[in-house]
């Protein structure tokens, strides 16, 4: 049927090329360990992908080229447009969407494998049926969970936790039903029912929705990482089903990456993954000196005063948070830093691991604004420097700077590692209002004697401060 058919499916030549492909993925990721080599690493990984795709297209017996070209064309066009248009502030949504389509692809492949197996009318071997079932469930959960995460990040649905009463029970029942149906399918492996498999996909879809809906915005870094891990595992499972080493290795790499990031994010919030998934902050006791609603005394300043404090400092640390992304303030902040550096002030950036909506979100925004990556300091690195810092500027961050996490054992965020800005000589908080952060608790930092509040939009405030410093 095709002139291209030169490789035998499952043959040594095809497998060897797949091995080359996944080796290039590993080399590519390895190059990604340093900013200067990461770009080349990405190209190497892309080269591996090209080899894997071409190898598959060359398999003997491939047909239906019209459909293949159609799928490739539509997907590539969407991919190109999305990657060129997306703003750096929107990267969490983009990654959520990519997680989603990845999981969706796996679920669809699993479904067609079941159809194909049934149509052959033979006994479905368990060592491919079980991975197919697993791939279908995890793929469907990831697809729907990721779409909900996308919708929340894109503000299409409220980012506040949405939970029905008895949600835990519903989830547990769904999970139980999924397990029972999986077992039934596996036991009946001589002629598994396609209808039951579709039911499985639907139940997994509902579960994916219900698990992610109650999760609030600040927990998104964990959720996105976890969904990333899920999609990776589902791809590896598809690899078992299709006997394809490239899928097994690539899926496992993605799964490892997502797992590592999930664990790092959870550690940075001092919460377990299951706690994040199964209990929104809404359920937490609102203890710890917050939520009383009464106005506590605080110092409020304007951009001019902030400029003076900053201009006469020796060392300044900027602490960005999600508010910086929302206000698109990264370039304006960089202007402030540039003005300060002109005056000989040392400016560093303190990045909390869960600042923003995905791992490394702040780093990408600041890189976009041309901040050299050497100036981006991790929490462990910057905290010992805080007492020697003249001014700490908090831009759009809240809970990750709340000293209650350290001082108040009853606080809902007790034990969460924070950027210890309260140790700095002076603190300027750029924020629209005194409203609490995602955790719904008051930030004691705002009422400390050495803290000044600058109530404004982050971008406007930063531009004003930069202009004011220049005029000093």
């Amino acid at each position, binding site marked *: 049927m095709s002139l291209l058919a030169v490789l035998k499916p499952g043959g040594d030549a095809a497998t060897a090329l797949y091995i080359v492909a996944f080796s290039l993925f590993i080399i590519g990721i390895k190059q990604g360990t340093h900013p200067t080599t990461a770009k080349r690493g990405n190209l190497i990984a*892309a080269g591996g992908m090209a080899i894997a795709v071409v190898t598959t297209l060359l398999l003997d017996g491939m047909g239906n080229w019209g459909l293949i070209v159609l*799928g490739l064309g539509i*997907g590539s066009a*969407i991919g190109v447009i999305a990657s060129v248009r997306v703003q750096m502030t929107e990267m969490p949504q983009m990654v959520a969407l990519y997680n989603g389509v990845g999981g969706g692809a796996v679920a669809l492949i699993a479904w067609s*494998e079941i159809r194909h197996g049934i149509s052959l009318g033979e006994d479905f071997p368990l060592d491919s049926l079980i991975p197919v079932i697993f791939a279908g469930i995890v793929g469907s959960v990831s697809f729907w969970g990721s779409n909900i995460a996308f919708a929340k990040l894109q503000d299409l649905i409220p980012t506040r936790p949405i939970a029905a009463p008895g949600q835990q029970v519903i989830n547990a029942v769904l999970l139980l039903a999924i397990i029972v149906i999986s077992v039934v399918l596996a036991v009946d492996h001589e002629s598994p029912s396609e209808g039951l498999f579709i039911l499985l996909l639907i139940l997994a879809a509902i579960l994916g929705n219900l698990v992610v809906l109650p999760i609030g915005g600040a927990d998104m870094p964990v959720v996105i990482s976890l969904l990333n891990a899920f*999609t990776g595992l589902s791809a590896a499972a598809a690899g078992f089903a299709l006997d394809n080493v490239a899928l097994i*290795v690539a899926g496992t790499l993605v799964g490892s990456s997502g*797992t*590592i990031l999930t664990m790092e994010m959870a550690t940075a919030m001092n919460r377990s993954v299951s706690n994040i998934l199964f209990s929104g902050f809404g359920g937490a006791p609102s203890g710890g000196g917050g939520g009383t609603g009464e106005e506590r005394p605080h110092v409020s300043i304007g951009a001019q005063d902030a400029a003076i404090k900053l201009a006469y400092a020796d060392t300044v640390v900027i602490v960005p948070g999600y508010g910086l992304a929302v206000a698109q303030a990264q370039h304006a902040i960089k202007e402030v830093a540039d003005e300060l550096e002109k005056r000989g002030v040392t400016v560093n950036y303190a990045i909390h691991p869960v600042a923003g909506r995905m791992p490394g979100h702040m780093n*990408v925004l600041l890189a976009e604004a041309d901040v050299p990556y050497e100036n981006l300091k991790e929490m462990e690195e910057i905290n010992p420097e805080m007492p020697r810092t003249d001014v700490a500027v908090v831009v759009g961050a809240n809970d990750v700077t709340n000293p209650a996490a350290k001082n108040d054992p009853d606080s809902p965020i007790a034990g969460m590692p924070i950027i210890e800005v309260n140790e700095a000589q002076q603190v300027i908080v750029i924020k629209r209002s005194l409203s609490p952060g995602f955790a719904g608790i008051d930030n004691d930092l705002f009422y400390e004697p050495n803290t000044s509040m600058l109530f404004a939009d982050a971008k406007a405030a930063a531009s004003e401060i930069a202009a004011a410093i220049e005029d000093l």
Partner: protein
Amino acid sequence: MSLMTEITIFVLAVFVGFEVISKVPTTLHTPLMSQTNAIHGIVMLGGLIVVGFANDGIEYVIGTIAIAFGAINIVGGFMVTDRMLGMFSRKPRPQSKPASSASRPGAGESDGGAS
């Protein structure tokens, strides 16, 4: 390939994955995620095999959608990662653009003199 061979590959890949990825600095975690999204696009091979060997209407449809999803992952993932990493590997900084220190809006002089 036997199941045990596949499990061997899987287990070794877990160790390689953890070893390599735990060395990626937090600064690069966002590009890491978009790059692994792209690598996850490898599932498109599954879609290609489904469609390439299909002779059934429903398999045509779901396989083609799977190919499109995978292609979004591959093309979009690698491209957006490239774009981001370009920002990280930029030369130190385009110092001293002429006229950057002059004329900033609202910096005093000649403010159109209203009211």
